[in-house]
């Protein structure tokens, strides 16, 4: 398999957290490689380091040791503004607790990733195009009629759909989902998984973290983390 096939490669990832005086080693040399258009599930018990690994892949956290290469570029060599751009353009995050901004309505939440890099003048020129994209996404996740609702007016499943639409707003090359069904009942969770499968079929690369084997089986490939290492 050639290196170019992989969209992201993490090698020898170590991560240690301080918990008071104690040090907890969460990742102990984890290796993960994800190919384009792949749907990968990272599974593991609670505390196995799967969320930490996802954060490192998404540049929300830095490893103590090891490298993460996105399309061949090492994230460790990127400066702050490059990492911001990386999180804004290349990555889409979906969280277990949706993490929508309560002050904004659904449409505004979805538009947010497009608004962040644009100044006032830049936003005026790209606003119409961005709105069309947001509407298409809301239609795709079944929330077109809920565009002007506030997050607190939506059900859990609807909030997660809105969060997925937001994550895909800037057409990221990689969607990272952290326990996307963890806070939902099984029927609603199933709907979210179907949505992810559909986007994957359309070519979206997805890395999903879950502790649920049944959820993981919906992915094309499963990586199991045990004690901070890929087994």
């Amino acid at each position, binding site marked *: 398999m050639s290196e170019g096939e992989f969209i992201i490669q993490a090698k020898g990832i170590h991560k240690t957290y301080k*918990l008071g005086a104690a040090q907890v080693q969460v990742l102990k040399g984890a290796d993960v490689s994800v190919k384009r258009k792949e749907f990968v599930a990272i599974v593991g018990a609670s505390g196995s380091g799967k969320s930490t690994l996802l954060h490192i892949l998404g540049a929300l*956290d830095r490893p103590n040791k090891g490298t993460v290469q996105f399309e061949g570029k090492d994230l460790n060599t990127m400066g702050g*503004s490059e990492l*911001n751009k990386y999180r804004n353009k290349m990555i889409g*995050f979906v969280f277990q607790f949706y*993490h929508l901004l309560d*002050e904004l309505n659904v449409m505004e939440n979805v538009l*947010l990733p497009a608004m*962040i890099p644009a100044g006032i003048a830049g936003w005026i020129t790209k606003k119409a195009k961005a709105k069309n994209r947001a509407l298409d996404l809301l239609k795709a996740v079944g929330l077109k009629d809920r565009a002007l609702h506030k997050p607190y007016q939506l059900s859990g499943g609807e909030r997660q759909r809105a969060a997925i639409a937001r994550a895909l707003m800037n057409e990221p090359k990689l969607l990272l989902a952290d326990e996307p069904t963890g806070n939902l009942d099984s029927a609603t969770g199933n709907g979210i998984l179907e949505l992810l499968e559909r986007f994957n079929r359309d070519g979206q690369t997805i890395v999903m973290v879950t502790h649920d084997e049944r959820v993981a089986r919906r992915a094309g490939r499963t990586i199991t983390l045990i004690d901070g290492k890929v087994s």
Partner: protein
Amino acid sequence: MYKFKLAFRYLYRRKISYLALIAVALCVFSVVVVMTVMNGLVSNFKEKNHNYTGDCVVGTNSLVGFPYYEDFSKELLSTDFIKAVSPVIKSYCLISTEGSSRGTGLEMMGVDAAAFSRVTDFNRGLHYHKNDPSKAFKPADEPNLPGCIVGVDLWYQRDSRGKYDYDIQPPSAALSVTCFPLTAKGALAKAGTDLVNTKTFYLSDFSQTGLARVDGSTIYVPFDEAQTLCGMIEPIPRISALHIKFKPGTNIEEGSRKVGAMWSKYFQQQNGKPNAELLAQVNVNSWKEYRREVMAGMEKEQIMLIIMFGLVGLTTVFVVGVVFYMIVSHKTKDIGILKSIGASFGDVVGLFLGFAGIIGLIGSSIGILAGLVFLKNINNIEDWLYEKFGFQLWDRTIYAIGLIPHRPDYTILMIIGCCAILACLAGAILPSISAAKARPTDTLQVSQL
């Protein structure tokens, strides 16, 4: 763009923001009202002093006075920047009404009413001869007798509205004025005798400068009479001061410097003449320098007030800082979300500083508007309070203040508004930086080990 949108949403969705808004508005309101009133009082006081003095004074504090003023007056009037010059005698006297043996010590000013009115606002302060000051020293009943003008507070008591109950014409009153004439050497002119210079003057008008100390202790008599009474008429006529009015457009400090230079030259030219040594005691001052002692107290009060409002500003910074710490502690999740979708350190700082700026802008606008409305009605409010409860900010029977100053200085309003916004930004800067430094993995609380 999203920063403004979010900042506005934070403002009206978070009730705690209203507290910051109210704190800013109240601070701005109080600063606007007190600064306007205080500045008005100070400006008004300065204006009254300027009107009373003229633009520049060539004079001496010595009661002996100085000679050779006539030639210097002519020299001054020949320049292109001086409009008018008026010689003045300043001394002390005792006055008593007819039949009374008790004398009251007063300041006496000998002026040519018409000339002095060209230099100062003397005629505007007269009650009966505003339009014709040349007749100000002519008593209504007996115009051929020598008249005198009395500071209004010596005669009348202000009513609760600060007004005087003038009669249709000046009351018939004869005032006996006693002076202690001095020779050019500073000795009593009639030393060795019991005699002093006494003359009876008849009340012809009242003078109201608006300066309580002047209006409560000064009697004005005709220039020639004062010069005689004070012993300044011979052998060489002397005066206490020359009051000068510059032509419009002349810078007062610059004009005073020119007069100073002219005086230095003139002083040299008089060297060797009899009593020329008296010229050495003469100073040339702009009206501000001349009235410095009187105005310094009020200016110090104004500086104290500015310092106190600086402390009010610090309180605003602290209140806004506390409110922002509370807001930021409630918004850590939002910070994590924004960072996870690409917001930078600067974006997060900008968001919260924008929020603070909006609070400052709206708060100061409300405070300024409320202040303007209050100031517009401040005298009506005081009238109403006086009618209902007998409350007055200043007892007008005691203080020579008419209306409470209420005209705002828009430059000062702008400065106050800008300071309020800056205070909000200062209060928000530390919470904003601490928010921007937060790690998304901590704020989103998803790093489940």
